[in-house]
């Protein structure tokens, strides 16, 4: 068999494997859209669940997920960006920095359910926040940090060194250089990272299982010390714990969650490509 033939067969095989990886994505998303679309109505989106969740809407779960995502942003964004600035601009290459990086890699690898246990142990029980939005958002924040840090650090690092040199040569201090030159230049990349991090937080179930999620709570949370329903947990509940659940509502809930999460994904991707094209350097 000639080398060219081997190559042609080989490339064909690679194409096939990639198709096998990519096609199910379309199948998954398409199937949920087709099955879930009939369930979507204004009533479904805006009303409380009724009749043991088998009727009515998913409004409290949507609101709960919004609360949790916003709460996660409040804690994770400032801390994550500060850590990224530290790693990109201040950290020198020494053992301590390597330890910090190793910690971040580990935070990224810790299973989501272990975050749930940690949140239960620290926030719910030890700090006595109880099962609450505060405890859930704090737990999700720590889980989200690695995503925000790594994307933001990358965004800071691609700002050309010349920008720093010029700013300092004009008499700017290090902090002025960072806050007025580097951060604004890196902002689009940092925003992308923040959105990707929050996307992950919005879709997670295991970390909120024991820290905030309510099985059935047909009212909206009044403060951060309330429990709340949340979309991912709600989907888990209605697809495994409630017998006789209409399949339409299950797919409808899955579709709402998927749209919520994937629109964040699209926003991040769009932001990234828009600013990459507009960037002057």
């Amino acid at each position, binding site marked *: 068999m000639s*080398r060219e033939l081997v*190559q042609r067969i080989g490339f064909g095989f690679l194409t096939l494997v990639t198709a096998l990886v990519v096609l199910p994505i379309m199948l998954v998303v398409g199937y949920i859209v087709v099955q879930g679309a009939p369930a979507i109505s204004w009533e479904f989106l805006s009303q409380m669940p009724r009749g043991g969740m088998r009727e009515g809407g998913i409004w409290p779960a949507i609101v709960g997920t919004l609360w949790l995502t916003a709460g996660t942003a409040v804690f994770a964004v400032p801390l994550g960006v500060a850590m990224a600035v530290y790693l990109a601009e201040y*950290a020198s290459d020494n053992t301590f920095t390597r330890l910090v990086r*190793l910690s971040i890699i580990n935070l990224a*690898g810790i*299973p989501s359910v272990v975050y749930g246990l940690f949140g239960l142990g620290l926030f719910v029980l030890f700090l006595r926040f109880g099962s609450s939005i505060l405890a859930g958002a704090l737990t999700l924040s720590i889980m989200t940090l690695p995503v925000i840090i790594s994307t933001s650090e990358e965004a800071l690092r691609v700002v050309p060194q010349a920008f720093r040199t010029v700013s300092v040569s004009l008499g700017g201090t290090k902090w002025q250089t960072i806050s007025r030159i580097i951060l604004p230049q890196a902002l689009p990349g940092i925003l992308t990272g923040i959105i990707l991090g929050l996307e992950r937080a919005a879709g997670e179930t295991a970390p909120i299982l024991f820290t905030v999620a309510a099985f059935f709570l047909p009212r909206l949370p009044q403060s951060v010390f309330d429990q709340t329903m949340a979309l991912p947990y709600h989907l888990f509940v209605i697809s*495994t714990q409630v017998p006789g659940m209409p399949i339409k509502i299950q797919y409808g809930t899955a579709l709402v969650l998927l749209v919520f999460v994937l629109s964040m994904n699209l926003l991040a991707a769009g932001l990234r490509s828009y600013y990459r094209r507009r960037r002057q350097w």
Partner: protein
Amino acid sequence: MSQAKRKIYIGQVIAEGLIRASGFSAIAFVLLIFAFLAREGVPAFWEVRPDVLLGARWYPTEGHFGLWPLILGSILVTLGAAVLAMPTGLLTAVFIAEVAPRWLREIVKPMIEVVAGIPSVVLGFLGMLMLSPLVRQVFNAPTGLTAFTGSLVLAYMALPTIISVAEDALDSVPRSYRDAALALGATKWQTIWRVTVPAARSGILTAMMLGIGRAIGETMAVMMVTGNAARIPLTLDSLMRPVRTMTATVAAEMGEVAQGSTHFHVLFAVGIVLFVITLLVNVLASLAIFRQTRRSERLLS
């Protein structure tokens, strides 16, 4: 110093101090997580006799806290996922990095990012409704909720990690390596497997480790498709039977146990086991990362 200048100066000192402190917080969080797992989990080791913890039966309501079925369940499902995802991920990464034309790459890469974005509960939901009936029919099994179904879903969830890290590693192999191989008369295919992939092997190894780490820790999807029967999966047909992983056990049972009970402490102990396993996997993966940067530095200097 004028008043205004002093204000700027103080603000600056505070801001820089906070930023430096944030560096410590990453280490602090890892320690904090371990401390609170230990606080609730370590009591399990004196409340339950070691021979019970190492027993073969997980039946908490009757005081049987044998961890083996859970540990082996996790290992079985993860191994299955690794066998499926590692070759698939590598081949896809090679296709994206080396073979696909630019326009195709711009389509395939975002689609794989979409998989990474799909919540695990949604994949579990679909796995339950679409995949498990299929598995039951194809293998003529009594149930479709099996270890194998779990492996399939997990493999799919590990793919985005494996593909993107491996593709990065392939991308960072210097252009000149490929040019040299091609100039010596190698075909593109030969160049890929004899030059590019070997040159990127440490990054590819990292990709595999991170993918496996992701698979071990996955919770919701696994819980929804594996059937959750706590039995020791050692025989060959175990793949086609329900299993129960460590993550699924914690997620399923923590909501129902009394706080401070032995069962509660044992579930935290399971969390410690998971924490330690993923810690080891990630440290190994990052060692591979460091090895690669060092080698590239040496080559450049």
